[in-house]
């Protein structure tokens, strides 16, 4: 079964590219750690999920790229084409010229309705190419204007159009300081709308990924491309084919369905997080050994202590756990879990975001920029209320 990816805004498109790249490279990894037949089955499964076939053998990503200004999409398309390994469909992108100005209201109330039909057609075309559709994977950020506002609109649209398909939204939680000043407003509005229309929200924080890059991967001058690659690695491990009950050579056919079934038992609790082990740079490959048991144990510790990485866990100090780097499918271990730690994240960050927001709201700061495009104060209050509800539900767990 296939997954159609929708990439929205600068963040969504930049990450989407890295995800497809990671998936492709991984499924065509030259390391022969298992039998040939095994590899082929894996490749086929992975490919069917994310790529469709093209005449000259270059697979095309099952993706729709959307942005309100052309620079990033052009870059993404050409990077993919240049790599020669895979590429995006020629007509699967939609862009405009003027951008969204970091304004959620502009993305949601202006761009949304204006371009609803074009975007819907693009997605339709992509869906028709699939033999069977598992669902949608929507990548967006919460801080900006297009990803957040238009993303919320598109998700709602998908809810109406494809009510039987599952939707997982990958949202990027911005840095605590210094990305966009109105990111708190945009985030609150996005979260509240997505909670109503999405099936699962997979959250990644820029701060956390940044720390992973710094501590574990030892990158000195971290760029967004580094951050996106780590993200792609994590996302890839979420979506790679896993064995089904029939045993080897048979991969689970419904990735999104399986995930949701196990992780989102109740529609009130939709937020998911990823813990990934191991996360090391390729340079450490030569110096590392690991055992399955060791990895699992470490992962459990990470979960319990709500840590995003192996190092720096509060209540236990351990030497860095060596591990094989990203690209070998056998050694990947990931656990997609939902427990109170995500709830804590929502509560803690939500509190920061919330108090920052309430402060601003009280003085109505920046609100005039939103009311210009039809988002009134009641909308803000509605969003606050909904999120408080969610926080309260998690607290009672």
């Amino acid at each position: 079964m296939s997954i159609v990816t929708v990439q929205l805004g600068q963040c969504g498109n930049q990450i989407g590219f890295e995800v497809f790249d990671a998936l492709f490279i991984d499924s065509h990894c030259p390391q022969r750690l298992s039998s040939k037949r095994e590899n082929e089955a894996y490749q086929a499964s992975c490919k069917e999920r994310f790529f469709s076939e093209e005449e000259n053998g270059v697979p095309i990503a099952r993706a729709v790229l959307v942005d309100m200004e052309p620079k990033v999409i052009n870059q993404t398309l050409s990077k993919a084409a240049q790599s020669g390994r895979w590429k995006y469909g020629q007509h699967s992108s939609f862009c405009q010229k003027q951008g969204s100005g970091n304004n959620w209201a502009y993305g949601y109330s202006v761009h949304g309705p204006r371009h609803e039909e074009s975007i819907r057609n693009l997605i339709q075309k992509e869906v028709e190419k699939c033999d069977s559709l598992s669902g949608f994977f929507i990548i967006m950020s919460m801080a900006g204007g297009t990803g957040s506002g238009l993303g919320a609109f598109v998700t709602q649209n998908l809810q109406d159009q494809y009510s039987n398909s599952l939707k997982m939204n990958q949202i990027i939680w911005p840095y605590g300081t210094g990305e966009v000043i109105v990111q708190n407003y945009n985030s609150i509005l996005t979260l509240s709308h997505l909670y109503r229309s999405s099936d699962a929200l997979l959250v990644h924080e820029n701060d956390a990924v940044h720390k992973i890059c710094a501590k574990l991967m030892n990158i000195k001058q971290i760029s967004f491309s580094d951050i996106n690659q780590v993200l792609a690695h994590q996302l890839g491990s979420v979506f790679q084919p896993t064995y089904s009950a029939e045993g080897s050579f048979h991969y689970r056919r419904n990735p999104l369905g399986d995930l949701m079934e196990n992780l989102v038992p109740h529609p009130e609790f939709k937020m998911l997080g990823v813990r990934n082990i191991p996360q090391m740079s390729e340079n450490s490959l030569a110096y590392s050994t690991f055992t399955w048991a060791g990895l699992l144990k470490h992962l459990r510790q990470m979960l319990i202590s709500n840590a995003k990485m192996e190092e720096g866990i509060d209540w236990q100090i351990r030497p860095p756990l060596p591990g094989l780097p990203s690209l070998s499918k056998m050694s990947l271990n990931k656990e997609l879990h939902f427990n109170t730690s995500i709830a804590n994240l929502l509560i803690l960050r939500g509190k920061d975001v919330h108090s920052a927001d309430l402060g601003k709201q009280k003085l109505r700061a920046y609100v005039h920029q939103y009311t210009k495009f039809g988002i009134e104060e009641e909308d803000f209050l509605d969003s606050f209320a909904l999120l408080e509800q969610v926080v309260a539900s998690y607290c009672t767990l």
Partner: protein
Amino acid sequence: MWIPGASLLTKFLLPSPLLVMANPFTEYYIVETQPGSNSLLIRVVGDGGSISKGKICSLKARAVLIDMEEGVVNEILQGPLRDVFDSKQLITDISGSGNNWAVGHKVFGSRYQEEILEKLRKSAEHCDCLQCFFVIHSMGGGTGSGLGTYLLKVLEDEFPEVYRFVTSVYPSGEDDVITSPYNSILAMKELNEHADCVLPIDNQSLFDIISKIDLVVNSGKLGTTIKPKSLVTSSAGTFKKWQEKPFDAMNNIVANLLLSLTSSARFEGSLNMDLNEISMNLVPFPQLHYLVSSLTPLYTLADVNVPPRRLDQMFSDAFSKDHQLIRADPKHSLYLACALMVRGNVQISDLRRNIERLKPSLQFVSWNQEGWKTSLCSVPPVGHSHSLLALANNTCVKPTFVELRERFLRLYKKKAHLHHYLQIEGMEESCFTEAESSLSALIREYNQLDATKSMPVEDLPRLSVAV
């Protein structure tokens, strides 16, 4: 053949000495443009040709030049950039405005309204997507101040959804135009009401920057040869003797400001920032839209033995008074918001590290403690490996306005020179009193914010919901 423009800016260039700025701005821009790049400020005519130094006849500035006397515009049309400016996009008169805001605003405003509108519409038609207007003028004179602000109203009516950015040169204390306080205050009212975002500049700061550079250049220290192209004051390529033409050097600085402002919209980067995002993030309340700008670095040393200025130094410089384009003291006042627009090979970790480092020494308003907006553009300016433009919405602009009001009141109390204004049809004393009260209201807003400076951050209660 049009190179498709992502978004477009139309510049309105208003009178001397600022009109001369068209030259450095466009010069630099042409140097920065590569074939096939985003045609934000310039459009290609004819068959494109090669956009190299010699053949700039195929580029036309998206600009309208307006002056009520012909001297400066003629100079441009005879200069090296004459082909860049379409003669159809000029509006000139002969007599000038006599440093009288009323003449510029009321007389020439109504006389040329139709013509201006027509040229505007023509320019707008050439754009795929019109995003904003840049209005560049001075506050102390007659045409720039009067006709310039009249234009703002016209733009607001005709193109209500297009942002209006204004770069205003404020008169310094030693200004030689006696009526500049009148002109400035009358213009301020218009700026308050019709501009989306204003970048105030004063000549004294620009002059100080030039002097500082001069000191370094002429100090004769070993190893301090400066790369000529890298000077923020030089025209592309040459290091002119600035003593002969100081305004050229000063205008170059402002040109660099505008280039940096638009760089993220023109070139690619890992964190883009469009012009509409400036207003969105830096203007929390519609009236408080005055931003203090500072540019670094001012020059790059040519000697390869000298290590390039450390990145962190660049960030520190951006918050030093020496690099500001207006005299103000942001560090001791209250920040409402701050934007850092970085160009060149700088990554997100460098940015975050410096923000963390500088944050403790800056005071942000209580409800916007994390009020930073950042952007990363991969293409550095000519002659540098990286550069930074900082835009701050800070209460430190208040003293400038207060001083302006003082000078205005000194003249107004004596009714000095008032008759020149009142004899113009449409002008009454109420114009003056309204303008003064508009400015006073603005000052009061800033005062209110300043009063919250030392107050502790309130812990606001969360909304309580029924579970």
